[in-house]
């Protein structure tokens, strides 16, 4: 596990998979093509604003809706590596981990309110801390479930060797 640093793109509650990648693009499986339409339903300018290694910061129920893996694929291909949200929808969470596209990290209201759109942040997975490099705050994060860390570090579920069966 390591340290990630990037710029934050901030969103609200219930960011659903239809706005992350609209249904009409589901016939597309090329990540580069999907990246051109990432977050199109909420901000069509997003693909032009985002850089590699950037973070998404969101409210409750991020990724609700469809099982389309195109959603974490599009965000990954657009450059996003970490999504910080107050809560995640279950299929989006699984897809992010099992495809090793994104690391979803749960945060509380305090963290959400202390970080603004465009802030630079640093995530240290060894210490499980998040620092706001723009405004200076440091926050402790909740531990990530062991199986999630195992699968993500393996590079996805297909490369994962379960410890126990």
């Amino acid at each position, binding site marked *: 596990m390591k340290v990630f640093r990037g710029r934050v793109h901030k969103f609200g509650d219930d960011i659903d998979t239809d706005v992350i990648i609209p249904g009409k693009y*589901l016939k597309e499986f090329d990540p580069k093509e999907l990246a051109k339409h990432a977050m199109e339903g909420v901000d069509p300018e997003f693909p032009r604003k985002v850089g590699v290694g950037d973070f998404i910061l969101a409210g409750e129920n991020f990724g609700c809706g469809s099982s389309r893996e195109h959603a974490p694929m599009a965000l990954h291909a657009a450059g996003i590596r970490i999504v910080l949200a107050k809560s995640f929808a279950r299929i989006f969470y699984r897809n992010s981990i099992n495809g090793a596209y994104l690391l979803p990290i749960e945060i509380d209201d305090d963290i959400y309110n202390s970080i603004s759109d465009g802030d630079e942040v640093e995530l240290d997975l060894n210490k499980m801390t998040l620092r706001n490099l723009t405004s200076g705050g440091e926050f402790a994060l909740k531990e990530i479930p062991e199986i999630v860390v195992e699968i993500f570090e393996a590079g996805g579920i297909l490369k994962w060797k379960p410890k126990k069966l």
Partner: protein
Amino acid sequence: MGMTITEKILARASNKERVDPGEIIIARVDKVMIHDVSGPPALKILEDLGVEKVFDPSRVWVTEDHFVPPPDTKSAKNLIELRRLAAKYGLRKYYRWGVGQYGVCHALCFEEALVAPGEVFIGGDSHTNTAGGIGSFAAGMGHTDIAFILKNGWTWLRVPETLLFKINGKLREHVMAKDLALHIIGEIGASGASYKAMEFKGEGIKNMNLEERLTLCNMTTEAGAKNGIIEPDEKTIQYFKERGVEFKPVCSDEDAEYLEEFSVDASKVEPMVAKPVSPANSSPVSEDEGLEIDRVYIGSCTGGKLFDLRMAARIMKNRRVKIRTEIAPATQSIYLKALNEGLIEIFAKAGAIILPPTCGACFGGHMGVLGEGEICVSTTNRNFPGRMGHRSSKVYLVSPLTAAASAITGRLTNPREFLHG
């Protein structure tokens, strides 16, 4: 302490005496479904890994439903790829458009009795929860998860806590399971059941036919639930018996432990509408009655089953639609039954257009998508921004009865007046 039906099914699938909520288990999967969006990438992953066979081809089924009939060459290419890969992996339960039975996966699952009560069913589609209506553990996953299951025959699961919904009384004649679902989601919110199981029981469920139970479980996805589930009863047993499907019914123990219990008086539920942009943004139709609309869509896994079409036809018989109305029977078999019962003629005479089975416009894919600013009253399950087309278009989710009544008046309409004089 006893277990819920969800826990009992998962205990059996993981060879354990018992499982408890929160526990991570390794569970055998009995049935797997892929369609033309989740299938090609899932099978391509296996091919790229050099995997020669899936764990058990007889436990896997495939349908073409999202981009069918293909609206463009890219969609057509995906279907060619799906067919090639299905052949390579010997997937014979393959339902193709234009070659007999096929259609919207969750309706097809029921029509063909592809998943039995008590089974663990994982589908490459979020509304896989639908099959919980016949008493299976049914949950949706993405295509990488599906590829892993196709290779290994098992997956990892966190045993969900269960929310119990006791449905007392009986729904009134003009109220459907869709209304009950919107009522419940409005109460608990769009993430009110996140990662949890939603179990429904009581008199209101006993009185419901199996298709309505499917609708109720279908909508649990919109509350964030991992699965929705209803214990099998005489109706369920009869259905599978008639189709020669054997199974061991699993029911919740008397002393099962639930995270929370809710009571709903079904006889008091009104026709409901979920306004943009969340299925949880629901209120009685009566509060917004008269809202002007542009389109009506009757179809999808939620609202395109035979019972849904029968209900719509009750209202549309000998009447004319006032606005553009699309009706998409969910499967080829439903289409044929609707034809034999005279429902298709009722719809056509009313002026509505009949579509082939397809997920089409429900997810904004093709065949009747909404234009800028258009307002649609729909029997589907999601009303997120731009769900059925343009970013500025709006979707109001209702029951098939309310959709049909609204098609006749051109406004959001309570179906009661059409059924009671």
